[in-house]
């Protein structure tokens, strides 16, 4: 946490430096890649059933094509899971595993 803040403090000090555009040019695409990797990893852990894939695809489409609040999309996803997903003993265990791994730590 302190390293994160130290880097942020350094970034704030660099606001008017000529180095900032070069740093930003690398960091922004890298950030998008890190987000994409996180999505891929979470997807690999979650997509055991077709319904999960359908919920993710619908959430993606609605997020891109509408101005719906993302919080509502999350809630809708949860409710869809509750109503549509088959009742199997494995589901709760899978959900538990995914939720535990999704909120991990950095190295």
């Amino acid at each position, binding site marked *: 946490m302190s390293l994160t803040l130290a880097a942020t403090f350094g970034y704030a000090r660099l606001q008017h430096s000529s180095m900032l555009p070069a740093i930003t040019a690398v960091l922004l695409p890298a950030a998008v890649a890190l987000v994409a990797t996180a999505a891929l990893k979470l997807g690999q852990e979650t997509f055991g059933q077709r319904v999960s894939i359908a*919920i993710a695809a619908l959430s993606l489409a609605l997020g891109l094509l509408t101005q719906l609040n*993302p919080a509502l999309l999350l809630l809708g*996803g949860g409710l869809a899971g509750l109503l549509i997903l088959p009742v199997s003993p494995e589901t709760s265990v899978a959900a538990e595993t995914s*939720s535990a791994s999704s909120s991990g730590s950095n190295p």
Partner: protein
Amino acid sequence: VTLGELVSYVAVYNFMTLSNGPVMISLLEQTLVRKHHAIDLDRLLFAFTIGRVTPGPASSYVASIGFMMFGWIGALATTAAIVAPAYLVLPLVKGYERVRRLRGVGNFITGLIAAQVGLIFCSVVRLGREALGSFTAVSIFGVTFLMTSVFRQRAPVALAVAGVTGAAFRLWQS
């Protein structure tokens, strides 16, 4: 956006996403960048990247966002918003032990996580449209993505390689 609003956004999103950093970036981008224009996309993504490459919880980057918007008090307040729920729910753990085996709860969480995946991909598309405007940017994206997803390298290593790639492309282009 006031400090109180920022803290409440962080607290609510942290709760809703089960403290999943990348999903939170999607929600924070939508709220702070697109809706309120409280912080620009460059700074939000800088905070996220620094949060990913430094040790600590995956959602620690919100402290960086808090610092950028409100200084040290913002960093402390957003950190508290992230950390406090983990302690506040301790008395509820016993109750959760009873509930977690219920199939409905498992299905709800599975659906929630599936929707999270969709939302993160949605963020990737939206952010990609803005951040990947040049061949160099696409190359850096590709290298970082390959390093982290295919070669399973840690974020700091991937970022270092991406930096070298970016520098090499700039030299080559000039």
